[in-house]
């Protein structure tokens, strides 16, 4: 397998072409965004919680294949989870995706193929952008909830 095919796997490219949960949400509890000044890529993530569980979830953004696939895979990784579980999933992914020494098999196959981009230091930000935005969106949704706010 060539290096190109090793990074740009069919799985990753399929997510890039047909990303899951793409589209803006108008009345979400939490919103987070990420910007990569290097390439102008930006991603936004919206999340709403039902009790403590992720209900609505979506992302919107303009970016490269890697950042789009990453956002799509991220939504699959945290949808339906509790906020606490979602934070754990995100934290584990970010740790593995930014540390060449961390074993890839800590992640499922989808996330692992994404985290493999860590071999290209200049592209790591493309991979982490949506996950960090999701983290911020979750935190906002949680503080919204603990402040007693409901859906608008």
């Amino acid at each position: 397998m060539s290096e190109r095919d090793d990074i740009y796997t069919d799985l990753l490219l399929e997510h890039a072409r047909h990303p899951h949960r793409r589209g803006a949400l108008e009345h979400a509890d939490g919103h987070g965004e990420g910007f990569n000044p290097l390439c102008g890529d930006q991603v936004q993530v919206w999340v709403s919680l039902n009790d403590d569980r992720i209900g609505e979830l979506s992302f919107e953004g303009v970016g490269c294949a890697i950042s789009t696939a990453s956002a799509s895979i991220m939504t699959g990784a945290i949808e339906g989870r509790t906020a606490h579980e979602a934070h754990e999933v995100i934290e584990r992914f970010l740790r593995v995706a930014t540390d060449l020494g961390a074993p890839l098999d800590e992640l499922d196959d989808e996330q692992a193929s994404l985290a493999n981009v860590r071999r290209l230091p200049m592209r790591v930000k493309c991979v982490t952008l949506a996950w960090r935005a999701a983290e911020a969106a979750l935190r906002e949704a949680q503080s919204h909830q603990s402040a007693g706010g409901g859906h608008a």
Partner: protein
Amino acid sequence: MNAVTPVRPLDLDAIIDSFPSLARRPHGRRLVYLDNAATTFAPDCVIEAVASHMRDLHGPVHRAVHTCGADATDAYESARRIVARFLGAAHAEEIVFVRGVTEAINLLAHSLGATRLRSGDRVIATTMEHHSNLLPWMQACARYGAELKLAPLNARGEIDLDQFASLLNDRTRIVVFTHISNVLGVVNPVATMCDMARRVGAITVVDGAQAPSRRRVRIRELGCDFYAISGHKMHGPTGIGALWGRAELLRELPPWQTGGSMVEHVMLEGDTTWSPAPMRFEAGTPNSAGAAGLAAAIEFLEQVGLEAIARHEAELTAAMVEALNRIDGVRIHGDPDERAGIVSFSVDGAHPHDLATMLDFEGVAVRAGHHCAQPLLQWLGVAATSRASVALYNRPEDVDALAEGVRNAIRKLR
């Protein structure tokens, strides 16, 4: 300065042999380096000039009576004379050593701003400026209450001279623009623009970052007041560059940074007096090894021959434009009358960063991003472009490798 590796004009094999970096093998592939607008590689003679300065000539510049001090000072001032001759300056004293174009422009925005800009004055830049020739002027204008106007471009990506003319008024104090666009490769009509600016009494500042490795620069013929160059964009070391300024203008400028070797009398009460230019603008121990490297790079370029280099680049550029235009879905930005060896393009269905990563796997280095020219990218209506830029050591096969890599990436990404 050290002897320069003998190279016959356009003896490509010999030229390539003199650049050790070209032997690097990214991902096990032959390196096809097409990011020369970002930075260029240095030939052996430059590397050796820096090393031999550090080994044999290092000492305190302008500070000591001992032999080591004299050796270092001689080498440093000799480098200044070489830069002056290269640009066609009247005197070596018109050359200020700086870190690069960025520092030169910051120096001018600070010192020229302080002496020339008042509330209500106007500074004119252009839509195609690199951030380094834009942000310092934005800050200076904010500080002194002046307004910054950007001269727009025509559909081909060239500066619209009619609109440029209509921006020039009697409050225009400073006009700044790049010699060659780092994104579009557009070569601006510097002499015409300087002439127009001079008629309203404005000072002209030209960003020469992309020019001196690509064509012969004669500042007297350009007619500008200041011209800035960066060593690493002309096969010299990083961290060294030069600002040329007219002697009478440098004389009136206040210092920018202060410190050692730029002062005559330090008066704790009363008026401190500054050294004359250029030393007034060179506070602190200077980058003498860098200056030696820059001088060696200049001698290298002159030995190869700037006319021969320009011709070689023009051939490669034409081939690159033709090869890219032949690929379905590739759109080249700008279509100027005169384009230096820089081509920016977009590819339908392929993000520039994915394209650049895929090209890198094939050993082809191109730049992807906004190229530190966000106003221009906004004008183009894209967040990022891919950019390929050639230098004297690129071969026609490099253009083939680029085109092949782009086709492969498109096949994979679509």
